[in-house]
């Protein structure tokens, strides 16, 4: 299994699409390493700078609704993975992006909008999130204190993460 948890990058906007996560012009690359510097390059969110240290240090993204909409490109999870971001937490995901995350053995965690709000209260305070994968729980820690939350994850999605991804799961079973 991959490592989950660490410093948080807050992206305070809904409907962030995969073109913003990794622009189409980089889809001519066939290695994940080549995608690395272009993470979130075209993203328009107030106060966000894709070249900042905040992005380099991030291990978890916390965002709003419909994250990862648009193109089916798995380059979106890949550009996160190669930057050591293996967890995205949102109030909802676009279907293909969500499946791509679990297919790569990464976590797409859905929380209620209220719960997402409670995480956003830690924005700008050096927040980090610990994930208890077996316990379906997470804890956020920052200068503002601590919050613990539980989440629900489908049995299939959890099995994919444990197997290391869909290729491993399907190859063993079908």
């Amino acid at each position, binding site marked *: 299994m991959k490592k989950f948890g660490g410093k948080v990058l807050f992206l305070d906007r809904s409907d962030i699409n995969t073109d913003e996560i990794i*622009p189409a012009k980089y*889809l001519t690359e066939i290695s994940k390493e080549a995608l690395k510097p272009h993470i979130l390059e075209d993203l328009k969110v107030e106060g966000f700078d894709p070249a900042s240290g905040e992005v380099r240090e991030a291990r978890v993204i916390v965002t709003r609704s419909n994250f990862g*909409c648009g193109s089916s490109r798995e380059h979106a999870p890949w550009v996160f993975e190669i930057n050591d971001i293996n967890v995205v937490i949102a109030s909802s995901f676009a279907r293909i992006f969500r499946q791509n995350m679990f297919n790569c053995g990464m976590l797409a965690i859905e929380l209620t909008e209220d719960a997402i709000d409670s995480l956003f209260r830690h924005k700008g305070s050096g927040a980090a999130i610990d994930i208890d994968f077996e316990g379906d729980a997470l804890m956020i820690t920052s200068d503002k204190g601590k919050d613990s939350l539980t989440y629900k994850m489908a049995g299939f999605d959890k099995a994919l993460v444990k197997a290391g991804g869909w290729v491993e799961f*399907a190859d063993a079973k079908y």
Partner: protein
Amino acid sequence: MTLAEKIFKTHLKDEPFPGTKVLGIDVVMCHEITTPVAINDLVARGKDRVFDPSKIKVVIDHVTPAKDTKTARQGKILRDWARRQNIPDFFDIGRNGVCHAIFPEKGFIRPGYTVIMGDSHTCTHGAFGAFAAGVGTTDLEVGILKGVCAFREPKTIRININGRMPAGVYAKDVILRVIKELTVKGATDCVIEFCGDVVKGMSMESRMTLCNMAIEAGGTSGVCMPDEVTADYLWPFISNDYEDKEAAVEDFRKWWSDEGCDYARVIDMDVSAMEPQITDGYKPDEVRDVSEMTGRRVDQVYIGSCTNGRLEDLRVAASYLKGRQISPEVRGIVSPATPKIFRDADEEGLIRIFMDAGFCVTNPTCGACLGMSNGVLAPGEVCASTTNRNFNGRMGKGGMVHLMSPAVAAVTAIEGKISDPRKFRREEAA
């Protein structure tokens, strides 16, 4: 049961967890952008094989001819693999076209099929009464190797589209209006069923335009009920399977959603008073009436793509362009979506009309739509486009894309600014 539920039932291979359905896949489609990484991974795992070469359809379409070493390498990986695996249906340069235009044209999609591709606009093929879903590279890889794919069983949203289509209003306007109503996330984990008299009266091309943009509302697949229009389109490919078209239509009916089936949502829409629609912003649900937008200057007009690059679209655009010149302030680009469309458009005199008007006619390719081959915008430039996405940076960093029908695009090219096709005289081009 809904059409989607019937397809799920007949294709179910396994239910490894409650709510997760592993389906057998009838057609796995591949292009050169999302497939090479899957191929390389299969090779690295020592599993360089395919579940059934006859069920895999392959095309180079996004960047063709190759523009540089990287895209040449992507094409080579796909080409070498298709040959190595003896895949009969591989379309290379000279015979290639936009995947969601050329695969239906070759008769690869049938009612009741399951279809996947590493491309979000795979939902287009639901126009034939199929369940067709865009997937990522890992799903594609498993599809290639095992012929299966896992889905949460989708709910269905039914859109009843009725009324009389006003002059100057087309399928593209209808789907933009539907997306405005649903929003960009309103159909997530849902299939969108397009029904009603307007859809019954539509050609397969128009139905593909509707289903193509289901993903822009988050939908897994668009679908239309397969009928006489479907049978007519498919007849060259199915004439050995059925005594006559009526028998084909009768058989297709088994896929139709049943009366009284369970819908997540039903939307009734009357198009009789609808204006041409156009996007304003960076999301495909930011849709307005064209009359609110007329007069805005554009730098480029693009007619093409898996949404609106088919013969019917070229005919509509040419009917406004015939005998006219586009504004000298505008760069006009048209990309017929397949070689057959290009040839038919040429024989009908449409290519001549585009060229006389001042359009650049490119080879069949995804082209300007996603800013990775030709037709890229400079920062600050605006494109009037018949494509499907207006995301920030989609057609080039700092560019703005307005989505619209081929009719609005054609008259916008003539004026050099966003214009209303209802104010223009049309001349049947063919």
